């Protein structure tokens, strides 16, 4: 295995103890993941950490530790920028390192939360990582000042050097790092005003690009260990079912096959020398399933349950003001429509995988995860060992999008397989088919919109009844609030800094009739903000057209109390030229929402051919995330959001038949490719004073902007996704 000195692209090797407990085939020296003040295996003293976040080596290399996971979103670089900014180090000498979840446990969670989801990577940790950088800087300065016998306050820092002007002395961080490590950390440190930033806030190149250009980046699926075996798995196609029987003898003689094992109640795995041989044998393995109580469920039966919820009496309230029933009763005009979205698979490019090494005393797991601590908990649980006897090494992720964060089902499987083969490391890789049919799907919901309008066309009342699946009820029931799933109301909340509605409507009711089918839901990039923005923003468009008003002007009338929502909407309107006619044959749509702490808006220009073929020519997207740590990465996230959001809106649907997901690969679950990719113009307008996320919010405006433009082009209102199911030819 190529050893790359940049930590996140390097796969840590197993601990000596675990490997020595194995079959005795391991005779190499082993890299032990960093320990404070430890010696390296060749006996040379390792560079001491200045504090938990910063190590400065004698050669002036600055190692910044990053607890959150990098999965393409740029958080690794962004968090390093924040630390480096306060540290005043030389950015050209910065590298990064993942502290392991076990080390976090052993050091009383000194690195805080490892969870990398909800667009929280930067916005939830910016303060303590900046303080970590500032504290390290203070300790380095104190060490130099002590050596010189001068007051620390008289010293200045710049790009990794410390100078004392009065005495004309200077030194480097690397020279004093050892001494700094012995200095008492400051109790409190002042942070820079973001207006003074020189590293943070700048469009710097990513730190992790180069290994991704020559194949040297190690992803979980690429991990190599001495004596490694490979496993392929098949879980019961119907969730809730299990294994009735299987004929191991039919495949045990096949090339490379080592073991056939049942995994829990519902899955069977084949372990072989190579993955291909494991998969080949698994394909030949006769398995009889007990498909359980859900074997008759279909998309149609789920839709019927959800339709019933649209009229159900009981519903959880997310936003209520005034008297909606009264407003609807007294309205000059009532407009009503029902919308719906299907299940979606995350479809990360790298399928789920984990490598596990189990002995009766210790269990180690190498896996791509969005939450190392949750992976450690899953490991300990499956291993039957205390977490202190387990370790998880986070390997680079080939995409996450929420699939690799909240549940670690694949880790559990890998550990259960490894338990059958003590001392032998086993890598479990899901086939694309396993991945596609055993996801944690974007929840299925329907929504009935009812609006009350007065004689002037003003919106006087709005009832949004969401019916369908709750993510938290399945994934994190402890986060439910009196039976209610607050995540369901993303973007529709009456206020607050996270996900508030951008309109003031005198009478409003947003409620949720919870209906949970057996297909397991998960946090899918953008989460509930996606459907909620489609429901609200397409319906606002409907109301504007129903009352003969311009869709932008109709919205702005309701946005007087929502200046940030309004600012991003006006920004996209201006850039796309809303007040001017679009080119011949081109039509526009517009929308806005707020989620994950940020304000976003989108505008689209589309055309639809006589044959009903949609072409998206141009997208304009505005985002106000409060503070922008790396504008070029935000631009990449915004552009990428349209690929993810439009893949779902245009093509994506996971449907259910006989209790199982019908789509098995990218041929039946198509996603956007370059031929359909529109130009995306990003307007980044950080207004300061708050910290919002950027990985997810823009996804929510992708679909409504395009769907509203499609209506403008065709007069057809697409209310049920994906759009490919609608004939767009002009009637």
């Amino acid at each position, binding site marked *: 295995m190529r050893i790359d000195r940049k930590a996140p692209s390097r796969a840590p090797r197993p601990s000596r103890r675990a490997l020595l407990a194995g079959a005795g085939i391991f005779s190499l020296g082993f890299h032990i993941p960093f320990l404070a003040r430890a010696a390296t295996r060749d006996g040379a003293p390792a560079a001491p950490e200045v504090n938990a976040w910063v190590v400065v080596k004698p050669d002036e290399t600055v190692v910044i530790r990053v607890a959150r996971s990098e*999965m*393409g979103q*740029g958080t690794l670089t962004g968090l390093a920028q924040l630390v480096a900014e306060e540290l005043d180090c030389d950015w050209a000498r910065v590298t990064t390192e993942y502290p392991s979840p076990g080390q976090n446990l052993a050091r009383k969670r000194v690195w805080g939360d490892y969870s990398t989801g909800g667009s929280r990577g930067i916005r939830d940790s910016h303060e303590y990582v900046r303080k970590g950088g500032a504290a390290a800087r203070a300790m380095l300065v104190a060490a130099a000042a002590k050596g010189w016998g001068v007051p620390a306050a008289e010293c200045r820092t710049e790009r990794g050097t410390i100078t004392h002007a009065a005495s004309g002395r200077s030194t480097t961080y690397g020279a004093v790092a050892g001494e700094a490590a012995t200095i008492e950390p400051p109790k409190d440190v002042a942070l820079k005003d973001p207006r003074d930033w020189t590293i943070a806030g700048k469009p710097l*190149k*990513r730190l992790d*690009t*180069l*290994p*991704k*250009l*020559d*194949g*040297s*980046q*190690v*992803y979980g*699926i*690429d991990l*190599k260990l001495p004596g490694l075996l*490979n496993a392929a798995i098949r879980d019961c196609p119907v969730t809730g079912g299990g294994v009735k029987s299987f004929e191991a003898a039919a495949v045990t003689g096949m*090339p490379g096959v080592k073991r056939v094992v049942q995994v829990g109640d519902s899955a069977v795995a084949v372990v072989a020398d*190579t*993955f*291909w*041989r494991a998969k*080949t044998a698994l394909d030949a393995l006769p398995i009889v399933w007990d498909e359980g109580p859900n074997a008759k469920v279909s998309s149609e039966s789920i839709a019927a349950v959800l339709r019933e919820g649209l009229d159900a009496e009981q519903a959880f309230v997310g936003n209520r003001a005034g008297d909606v029933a009264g407003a609807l009763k007294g309205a000059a005009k009532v407009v009503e429509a029902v919308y719906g979205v299907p299940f979606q698979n995350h*479809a*990360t*490019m*790298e*399928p789920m995988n984990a490598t596990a090494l189990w002995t009766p005393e210790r269990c180690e797991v190498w896996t791509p995860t969005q939450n190392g601590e949750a992976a450690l908990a899953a490991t300990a649980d499956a291993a039957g060992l205390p977490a202190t006897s387990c370790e998880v090494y986070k390997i*680079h*992720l*080939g*995409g*996450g*999008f929420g699939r690799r964060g909240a549940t670690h089902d694949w880790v559990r499987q890998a550990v259960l397989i490894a338990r059958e083969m003590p001392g032998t490391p086993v890598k479990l*890789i899901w*086939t*694309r*088919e396993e991945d596609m049919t055993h996801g944690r799907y974007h929840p299925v919901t329907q929504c009935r919109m009812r609006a009350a309008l007065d004689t002037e066309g003003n919106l006087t009342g709005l009832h949004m009844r969401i019916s369908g699946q709750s993510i938290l009820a399945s994934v994190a029931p402890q986060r439910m609030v009196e039976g209610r799933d607050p995540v369901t109301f993303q973007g529709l909340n009456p206020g607050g800094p996270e996900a508030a509605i951008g309109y003031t409507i005198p009478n409003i009711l947003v409620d949720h009739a919870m209906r949970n089918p057996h297909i397991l839901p998960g946090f899918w990039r953008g989460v509930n903000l996606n459907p909620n923005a489609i429901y609200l923003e397409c319906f606002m468009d409907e109301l504007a057209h129903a009352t003969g008003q311009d869709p932008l002007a109709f919205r702005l009338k309701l946005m007087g109390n929502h200046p940030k929502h309004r600012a991003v909407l006006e920004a996209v309107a201006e850039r796309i030229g809303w007040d001017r006619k679009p080119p011949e044959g081109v039509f526009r749509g517009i929308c806005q929402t707020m989620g994950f702490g940020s304000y976003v808006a989108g505008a689209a220009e589309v055309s639809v051919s006589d044959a009903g073929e949609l072409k998206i020519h141009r997208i304009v997207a505005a985002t106000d995330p409060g503070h922008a740590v790396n504008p*070029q990465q935000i631009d*990449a996230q915004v*552009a*990428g*959001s*349209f*690929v*993810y959001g439009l*893949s779902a809106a245009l093509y994506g649907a996971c449907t259910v038949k006989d209790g199982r997901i019908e789509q098995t*690969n*990218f*041929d039946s679950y198509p*996603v*956007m*490719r*370059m*031929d359909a*990719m529109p130009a*995306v113009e990003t307007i980044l307008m950080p207004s300061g004073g708050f910290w919002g996320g950027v990985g997810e919010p823009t996804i929510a405006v992708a679909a409504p902007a395009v769907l509203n433009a499609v209506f403008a082009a065709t007069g057809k209102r697409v209310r049920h996704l994906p759009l490919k199911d609608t004939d767009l030819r002009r009637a």
Partner: protein
Amino acid sequence: MARLTVNGVVREVDAEPDTPLLWVIREQIGLTGTKYGCGIAQCGACTVHVDGAAVRACSLPLSAIETGQKIVTIEGLAPGMDHPVQQAWAELDVPQCGFCQPGMIMASAALLAQTPRPSEEQIRAEITNICRCGTYNRVLAGIKLAAERGQSG
């Protein structure tokens, strides 16, 4: 035993004849830059060059490789990462998670070898690899930049 020429080196491999080239490259030869994404030639993460042409190695059995055919993987595309496509990718910070990028780069390099100045329509039609992070616009810009460099250099 089959003989393969991979990145200029002749390798003896011990695999069943129906083993896809992808898994031979990854598991027998040990070059893991070539990725598994779908197994049915849909996503292009496994793209390698066989005699200069981009092929999807997940759907090409070992038995289909003829003696003497030259296979090039991402690891062997250019020494020192100095292929114009890799250079353009570095300049524009194209990758996000990066998992699809070896395939993207190999597909793009093969396109430019065949069509040094492709039109935007040609690029959009020829590069059909899937990226879920959504790097398409930077991939497009990267190919255009590499094409310009290829012309001037």
